[in-house]
């Protein structure tokens, strides 16, 4: 068991390190001149060579790449991700001030998405009517194929401008959270719903279901007490995809609804080429992603006794 734990923690650390290294290569080494990127393009012509050298020395760009890498990695390891070019404040500060609204948005959206997914899966496997099951099964692919911004615009149009139920923008309490959460939840629910529906329908054909029915179980009982757990387990395996969708979706959703958050910060930093902040966002995302997957890996054996036995025998 401890070996399993150790391997999973090692993997999480590796993911974060790899994200850091890749982003370092992409952001600092590949551009023709990383220093030029630090300046506003319009100011670039007027900047003197001496100023550039001073800046290069300040950010350590005058050192060999490998030295830069290890220095920065060492700093990052101690929690120092550098300074924002735009604000001059630490990257941690920039990210720390916006991470909370994004986490609230993402967690709420995840909860709603999981509810939608289970709803679709339950109804599709519970209904006696084939047409309804087919209709329900066609929803998940549809939600994935519609772009997030389109969902957002339609929701704003209907619920803000026409009905006036929710504010179209801003971050003013729970009411303003509803539309962004729904907008983000819809595409995120797609892959989960698809997997769950397939999984529910497949598990319903499993021999143990017949055993249950033969001992007197009704269809609802079979769904909730026999199939539910077995069918839900595979959904945990796409946790990585879900985290990815949440992060990518939040960039778009926060932009549409003008909400503060990591997504907005990403958009802003990319627009102003604030490289330390961009790398900071990549690293923080990688940490969240790795922690999420680690949590799934640790929870899975608790839900599936077979996996637990396999780990114990290793």
């Amino acid at each position, binding site marked *: 068991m401890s070996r399993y734990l150790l391997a999973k923690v090692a993997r999480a650390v590796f993911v974060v390190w790899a994200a850091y290294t890749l982003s370092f290569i992409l952001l600092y080494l590949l551009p023709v001149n990383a220093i030029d990127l630090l300046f506003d393009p319009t100011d670039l012509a007027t900047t003197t060579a001496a100023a550039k050298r001073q800046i290069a020395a300040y950010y350590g760009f005058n050192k060999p790449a490998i030295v830069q890498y290890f220095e920065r990695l060492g700093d990052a390891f101690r929690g120092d991700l550098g300074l924002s070019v735009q604000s001059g404040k630490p990257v941690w500060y920039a990210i720390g001030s916006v991470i909370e609204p994004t986490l609230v948005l993402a967690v709420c959206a995840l909860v709603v998405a999981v509810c939608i997914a289970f709803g679709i899966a339950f109804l599709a496997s519970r209904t006696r009517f084939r047409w309804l099951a087919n209709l329900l099964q066609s929803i998940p692919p549809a939600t994935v194929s519609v772009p997030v911004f389109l969902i957002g615009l339609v929701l704003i149009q209907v619920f803000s401008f026409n009905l006036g139920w929710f504010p179209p923008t801003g971050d003013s309490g729970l009411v303003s959270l509803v539309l962004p959460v729904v907008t983000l939840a819809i595409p995120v629910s797609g892959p989960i719903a698809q997997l769950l529906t397939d999984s529910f329908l497949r598990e319903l054909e499993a021999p143990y279901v*017949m055993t249950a029915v033969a001992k007197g179980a009704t269809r609802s009982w079979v769904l909730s007490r026999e199939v539910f757990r077995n069918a839900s387990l595979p959904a945990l395996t796409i946790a990585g995809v879900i985290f990815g969708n949440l992060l990518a979706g939040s960039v778009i959703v926060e932009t549409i609804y003008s909400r503060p958050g990591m997504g907005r910060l990403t958009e802003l930093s990319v627009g102003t080429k604030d490289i330390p902040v961009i790398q900071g966002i990549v690293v923080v995302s990688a940490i969240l992603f790795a922690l999420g997957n680690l949590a799934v890996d640790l929870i899975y054996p608790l839900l599936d006794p*077979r996996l637990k*036995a396999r780990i114990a025998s290793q």
Partner: protein
Amino acid sequence: MSEPTTATTATTAPALLRLENLQVRYGSPKAAAVDDVCMEVWPRELVAVVGESGSGKTTLIRSTLGLLPSGGRVTGGRIFLGGSDVTRWRDKQLARIRGPFVGFIPQDPGTALNPVKRIGQQVVEAILLNDRRIKGPVARSMALEKLETAGLRDVDRIFGRYAHELSGGMKQRALIAIALASNPKLLIADEPTSSLDVTIQKTILDHLDRLRADFNLGVVLVTHDLGVAAERSDRMIVMQRGRVVETGPTNDVVAAPEHRYTRELISAAPSSHSSRLVSRVQPDGHGPRQSVQPGPASRTDLLVVDSVSKHFRVSRGPSGSFAAVSAASFTIPEGTTHAIVGESGAGKSTIVRLAVGLTPADDGSVWFDGSETTKLTHELRREFRRHVQFVYQNPFSSLDPKFTVRRLLAEPLHVHRAVASREVLRERVHELLAAVALDDSFADRLPVELSGGQAQRVAIARALALNPRLLVLDEAVSALDVSVQAQVLQLLVDLQAQHGLTYLFVTHDLGVVRMIADTVSVMRSGKFVEQGPVERVFSAPQDPYTRMLIDAIPGRAMRVAGPAENRISASIGAEQ
């Protein structure tokens, strides 16, 4: 339809199960999966439904429980359970009699238990589903009692176990406990022991017999195994293509089958008194070993396995290994068949892998045609691989589903660069198909377009493609229906005579051993407990385990051939 076996039961209560001209269809309206079937089951009676795959026997009994898979529906006739017509009952109504009136024992114990629930909980639920007034602790002690009734010992420990922690036999007993949970009057068992070892099959069936007597249960036993049906049932229903072809008291049916199909089934069924099949063909002289003269004296030993051992590590530490095979030796003279027989987990697969060099042995040596296989040069090793070919249990998983039969047969020839031109290849494919009695039209088919027997013939043809000297047949006929099994065994015997092939035959089925093998090794827990000529081992087994295995072979009842004996057993059957 058959009469109730005794007059008293007929007058006091209605039949537990009565089917009147039942018809079941799937999707397409053309063919009925079950057509015009009538049957009755009375208390304390065991009725066997016998048939090969696709005969509709499973559909038949599932329809009686309202457990048809989606798409299946009853399109004619009526189903009575305990006297009430349940044909048009809804799921909710049926749920109330499933459990308290009729218990069901499913086919494959490996998948029939919920993998994420403890065994005890599954039994407790079976009790509570049908009587919600029972309190938790009471239900627990009732569940423990049911597990004991089902023949399990150490029930307190098993109560808290998961399915994957139990053996197949224990899982099947847990399923019996679930079926018995609400004290049913009728038990329906769908191939309950088909995936179990013979000795476990025997104890489970013995136990069912005892339960039937103790609780006055009526039992429907669905089986493909005529031996099991003949030995255990009072009455027998033989099905073919959805219809009942023969029905009656078991002893009558076995002793004097009226329908041709029943006669075929009985003659094809391997049992403890089967005898060695004789080749129908003469050696054609084209075989690769023309020099080999018939007669045991002149035969050389093709494969010699000399006290090989294999240990597998199961956990760290010095004591954490177990001996899959320990000091096993056997010899196969060229042109003969050696069978390795044993129950699951005995180490049969491991000894085969050791014998053909797929797994290196920890100890001992293997000699093929006079040279030690571990010391072969690269070139000779390739030659050795060509001379040893395999046929596995499930042809559909060992044949690439996307390859045509032609490509499947050509592949080994390509791999060993054994074919010169396209014409030669076509000719060779034709020869191989002819060898396994398939015509050329099969060459362009895909595996899905073949029946189980045809697919296994293709697998055999593929194994023959390189003119091997030794064929390893790993449970090669175990998945086939008895009539098809008999044909494939005959084919193997013919091929052996024709080409002077040597067979290493691995099986759990002692009946099959009698039909094809010359010598046999009985394996248990990695050791050979008995070896010798088949006739000697079967007629005078030395080891108690061998004796137990032979005793467990179902179908001893089918030996009754004399008319006098028949009458006696028939009257015993009628008394029940």
